[in-house]
């Protein structure tokens, strides 16, 4: 129950109809759910394509989408300008798959030609030789974060520049395409984890919420979620699913 003095987090879901093809709308549900568990009050703002993006968000969420949707989204966000300025002012950003790619310098459009990205993080995406489709498991490079699990479905090879850190080291699957997965720069986090990523990795949701309120959140485990994590990690890592790699 949110009380008058509970901490509030404003979550802005950017173009959920354009960028939400792979169940990524679930990330916002997961953030709301985790916020409630931690006694935080989550305020959700959904921004439809064509509408202005509010400047006052604490956390901005971008999901995945098909090629034409990705290009349309990049145009809209770039013209609006508020996402880049909010992030420069310290707001957190979670970007999945197509959303992750479009934060960078360029990404492949529907014809495979480089399309101009938002240039918010130091990454460049071109095409993988073969589309990556399947379970993705990765060892987080952020201290204290448990092993990551998700489903990837993308054709992009993402190259990280000097100003970003990879989110994780791939144990199974493709990720960025060079053995790393995702990227972190300040409070901007990009990843290929669908599933949705935050429902399958609540610690990642807690990390983002923690960035918003300026303190670390205590881990809380839920049996349904732990059972799913174990099942998914087991399918690709076998008996060693929870042993250090």
């Amino acid at each position, binding site marked *: 129950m949110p009380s008058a003095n509970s901490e509030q987090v404003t979550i802005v879901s950017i173009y959920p*109809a*354009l960028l*939400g*093809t*792979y*169940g*990524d*709308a*679930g990330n916002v*549900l*997961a953030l709301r*759910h985790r916020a409630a568990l931690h006694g935080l009050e989550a305020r959700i703002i959904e921004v439809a*394509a*064509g509408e202005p993006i509010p400047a006052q968000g604490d956390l901005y969420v971008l999901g995945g989408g*098909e090629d*034409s*949707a990705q*290009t*349309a989204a990049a145009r*809209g966000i770039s013209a609006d300008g508020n996402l880049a300025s909010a992030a420069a002012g310290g707001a957190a950003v979670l970007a999945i798959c197509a959303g992750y790619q479009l934060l960078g310098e360029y990404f492949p459009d529907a014809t495979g030609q480089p399309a101009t990205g938002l240039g918010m993080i130091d990454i460049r995406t071109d095409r993988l030789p073969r*589309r990556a*489709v*399947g379970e993705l498991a990765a060892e987080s490079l952020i201290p204290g974060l448990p092993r990551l699990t998700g*489903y990837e*479905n993308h054709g992009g090879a993402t190259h990280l520049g000097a100003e970003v850190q990879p989110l994780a080291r791939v144990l199974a699957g493709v990720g960025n395409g060079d053995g790393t997965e995702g990227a972190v720069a300040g409070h901007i986090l990009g990843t290929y984890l*669908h*599933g*949705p990523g935050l*429902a*399958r990795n609540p610690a990642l949701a807690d990390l983002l919420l923690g960035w918003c309120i300026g303190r670390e959140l205590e881990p809380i485990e*839920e049996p*349904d*979620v732990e*059972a*799913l994590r174990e*099942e998914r990690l087991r399918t690709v890592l076998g008996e060693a699913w929870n042993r250090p790699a």
Partner: protein
Amino acid sequence: MPPTPFRTRAAVLAGRTASAASRLTGRGEGLVVGGKVILKVSPGAMRDLAGDRVAALVSATNGKTSTTRLLATAVGQTGPVVTQETGANMTDGVLSALAYGHPRGQAVLEVDEAYLPLILPDTRPRALLLGNLTRDQLDRMNEVAMVARKWRTMLESCPERTTVVANCDDPIVTWAARSAPRVLWVSAGQNWTADASVCLECGGLLRFGGVEGWRCTSCGQQRPEPAWRFQIDDGRFTAVGPDRRRFDLSDLALPGWFNAANATLALAAATDVLGLDARTSVQRMATVTAVSGRYEVRTIGALDVRLLLAKNPASWSELLTVMPPAPAPVIITINANDADGRDPSWLWDVPFEKLRGRTVIATGDRRRDLAVRLLHAGVDHVVIEDPYAPGVELPASARDLEVIDCAATYTAFHGLRTRADARTDPQTRRRKVRRAATRVVS
């Protein structure tokens, strides 16, 4: 009709033998094997067998099997009809239906969206019904826009005798159908707009809503004026024809607004393209109770189960509306085999929040994904590997129900049908189907 060429007659015979052999040895769908053999012996067999007798082809992401069954039943008022009984809707299934169905029957056939461009030129239907295009199984790279582009190219050289009957509430279908020379537009509803946010003409953004339906905010493309409309007036389903004649569709045995919308598409084709009597068509369509096992009540273990099939987020969203109201518990079975889509992330695009106030029994190979989804939707649930096993512990409310709804993904649905087949006595089943039908809410 000219006599069927010898080569094709021989091919049909060979196909029949192969298909019987396949069934006898238990290697599954005889139809598919039969179709392959026919084409091998006579590559022109599709055109030969179709002749001029194909009344209609039906394609869509969702509802094609039901729409086909409804239209085939309406067309039955003029004589024998050839249609698939099993839902086999690719080249082999279409070919087998034509080869083994009544030799002079008019054909009403469902066709897989991706196979339609291959099948249309050889079958030359009088009506081509196009219902909707939404995302199906994403990991098959079956992107909606790609299918739409193929349809559009296909319709640029549409057979001369074909009238396209298209759902103009779906902007993707409309964009594809606009290239056809003769189109009968039907406003058949489309609640699912998540796959149609971008205009295929110009890449601009689409807006939905209002009496005019949808329009593009950049190039001004908008919903064409429909000749037929599906309406819900005070909870009653109605089809309104071009002359403002109204047809009450509330008495259909098939549940849900989407089946009444499918019936509107079928009625428009039956009346305005095939020249059939509208009243008789509606009466005949009302008698369709189950479609390839969907909506049938079967006994599985200790439970009597009404079997519901959904294949993608759009059809799941619709299916939730035919379930009895809370607190009635329901069983939901999620698999992620190839035919279901390997990635069940789509669970997060389905408004499972609608099931609040009841207990959901989560089962199937991916029951744990469903459990996490239901946790986030605030829906009470239990995870049970096999709710039909003897002695399994079920919520008391589930045991008390006379018939419990079980909604399942494709392979889960077929698994349940196979499991039920051996035991249910047809008489009990018919009685229960009637009872289940009367308690449907919309």
